[in-house]
C-alpha cells in the first residue's frame, strides 16, 4: 500500500503546479486551433474543425519554415553540443585558474536574447561591424560581407549567435555529469594501460550516456521552439530566409492576428517534437 502511494506523493507537487499553470493554457490553445480566431474580432469564433491544419499543410511557407527549423535545430544543437562537450572535458581537468575559467564560460548563457541579438547584429554589421573590419584587415575576407542581408549567410549568422549562447549549457550540464564518474575507474584503467581515447570510450562516454541523451533531447526541444534570437536579429528575414516554424506561428498569431491559425502551427510543431520524444523514451525503455 505504502509502495504504491509514495511515487505519487513525490510527484504530486510538480503535477499539480503543471496542471494548473500550464496544462490549462495548453488545452486552451489546442481548443483555439480548432476555431477561426482573429484577435481583433473577439465576437466571432466559428468552429472550423481541422481547417487550420489543412491550410497549414498546403501552405508553401509552412513547409519552408519546417525546412528552416530542421536546419536550425540540427546545426545549432550539433555545434553547441560538440563544442560544449569539448569545453566540459577541458574544464574537468585540474589547473590553477579553473574556477575563473568555469565561471567565465557561463557568460554567453547569462545574457538575455535581446542583448545577444543586438551585439551579434552589430558585430556582423556590413559597414561598422567589428567582425567584418577584422576579417578584411586580417585578410580572411576580401571585402565586407552583408551577413544578415543575404539569404545564404543569414541562417549561418543566427546559428552562430545561438551556438555562442548555447555552448555553456552543455559545458555545465556535461561537466556536472562528469563528476559522477568515479575517479577510481580512470586510475584502474591507467594501471591496465589504457590510453586517453580508450578511457574516453569505455569510461567517460558510458558514464555520461544518460546525461548526454537527456541534455541533447532537452536542448533540441528548446532550440526547436526558440524564436527570440531570430526575431531580434533578422525577424525571419531577409524575406523568409530565417523564418522557422515557431516564428511563423508567432507572427501569424500576433502580427497577422490569426490566432487560430497560429495555434494550429504551434500544435503541429508540438506533435513533431512529441514524436521525437516518444521515440527517445521508447528506445531508452529497452535498458
Amino acid at each position, binding site marked *: 500500500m505504502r509502495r504504491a502511494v509514495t511515487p505519487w506523493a513525490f510527484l504530486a507537487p510538480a503535477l499539480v503546479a*503543471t496542471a494548473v499553470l*500550464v496544462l490549462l493554457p495548453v488545452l486552451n490553445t489546442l481548443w483555439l486551433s480548432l476555431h477561426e480566431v482573429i484577435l481583433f474580432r473577439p465576437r466571432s469564433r466559428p468552429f472550423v474543425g481541422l481547417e487550420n491544419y489543412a491550410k497549414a499543410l498546403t501552405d508553401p511557407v509552412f513547409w519552408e519554415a519546417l525546412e528552416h527549423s530542421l536546419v536550425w535545430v540540427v546545426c545549432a544543437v550539433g555545434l553547441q553540443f560538440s*563544442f560544449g562537450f569539448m569545453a566540459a572535458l*577541458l574544464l574537468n581537468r585540474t*589547473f590553477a585558474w579553473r*574556477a575563473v575559467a568555469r565561471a567565465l564560460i557561463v557568460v554567453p548563457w547569462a545574457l538575455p536574447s535581446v542583448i545577444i541579438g543586438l551585439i551579434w547584429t552589430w558585430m556582423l554589421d556590413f559597414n*561598422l561591424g567589428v567582425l567584418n573590419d577584422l576579417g578584411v584587415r586580417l585578410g580572411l575576407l576580401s571585402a565586407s560581407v552583408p551577413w544578415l542581408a543575404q539569404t545564404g549567410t543569414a541562417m549561418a549568422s543566427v546559428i552562430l549567435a545561438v551556438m555562442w549562447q548555447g555552448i555553456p549549457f552543455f559545458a555545465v550540464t556535461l561537466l556536472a555529469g562528469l563528476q559522477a564518474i568515479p575517479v577510481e575507474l580512470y586510475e584502474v584503467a591507467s594501471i591496465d594501460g589504457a590510453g586517453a581515447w580508450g578511457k574516453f570510450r569505455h569510461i567517460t562516454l558510458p558514464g555520461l550516456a544518460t546525461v548526454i541523451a537527456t541534455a541533447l533531447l532537452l536542448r533540441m526541444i528548446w532550440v526547436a521552439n526558440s524564436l527570440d534570437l531570430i526575431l531580434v536579429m533578422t525577424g525571419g528575414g531577409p524575406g523568409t530566409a530565417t523564418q522557422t516554424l515557431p516564428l511563423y506561428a508567432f507572427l501569424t498569431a500576433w502580427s497577422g492576428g490569426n490566432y487560430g491559425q497560429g495555434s494550429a502551427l504551434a500544435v503541429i510543431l508540438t506533435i513533431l517534437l512529441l514524436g521525437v*520524444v516518444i521515440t527517445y523514451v521508447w528506445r531508452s525503455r529497452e535498458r
Partner: protein
Amino acid sequence: MKRARLTLLLGTEIPILGFLAFAILPWCWMMLSSIRPERDLTRSPIALWPQTLTLINYIELLQRTSFAQNMRDSLIVAVGAVSLGLTLALPAAYAFSRFRFRGRQVLRTQFLVINMFPVVMLILPLFVLMRSLGLLDTYFALIGGHATFTLPFAIWLLTGYFEGIPVELDQAAMVDGATRLQALRLVVFPLAMPGVIAVGLYLFITSWNEYLFALMLAGRNVRTVTVALQLFIGEHQIQWGLLMAGGTLVSVPATILFLFAQRRLVGGLTGGAVKG
C-alpha cells in the same frame, strides 16, 4: 619547462583560453562599447580601442533609470524560481528514477509536452488565468510562471543525474532505518550535488533572462531587467550606451553565482560511497 607543465599548457590551458576567448570576446566588446562615448560607434573606419573612456553610461543607467531596482526584482524572481523549481523537481526526479510504476513513461513525457509549445502561444490564456488568480504584477506570478515552465526540463535533467547514483545506496540507508524522504535528503541529494548545481544554474539563468512573462504578467510593481532593457529600444531612438552598460551588468550575477557554486563540481563524490 617541465614536460608535465608543457602538456598542461598545450593540452588544457591553451584550448581553454581559446574557448574562453570565443565566449567572452563579444561580451568584452560590449563592455568596451559601454565605457566609450556613443560617438565612437559611428566612427568609420572602426576604432577597436577607445580613445576616450567614460563612465557616463553607467552613471545614467544607475541614477536616471530604474535599472538597479530592476536588477533587484530580477534577483528576487530568479532566486524564487530556483527555490520553487528545485523544491518541486527534486522529489519528482527521485520518484522517476527510483520507482517503477505504471504510467511512469507517459507521465515523464507529458511533463515535456508543455515545453514543446512556443510559449508565446500560451501567453493569452495564461494572462487571463493569472488575472483571475489576482496574481498579476506580483512576484508570485513570475516565480510561479518561471518555475512551472522550467519544471519539466529540471525534472528530466535531475532524473538523469539521479540515475547515475546506484540504488544500492538508498537501500543501504533504508536498511539502516531511513524513510524514502530521508534517503533522498541525506544520501541521494548530496551525491547528486553537481547535478543539482547544474540544474539550479539552469533555473536561475532561464528565469533571469526570461522576457515574455515579465512583460505580460508584470510590469509596474515588478519589472525585471529584461523588460527594462527593452525600454531602451524606443520607437525612434535606440539608447545604445545604456543598452551596452545594462547588458554588461546583466551577465554579472549569474557568473558570480556560478563562480562560487562550481566549487561543488568536483569529481569523486560517488567514488568510495558504495564501499562504505
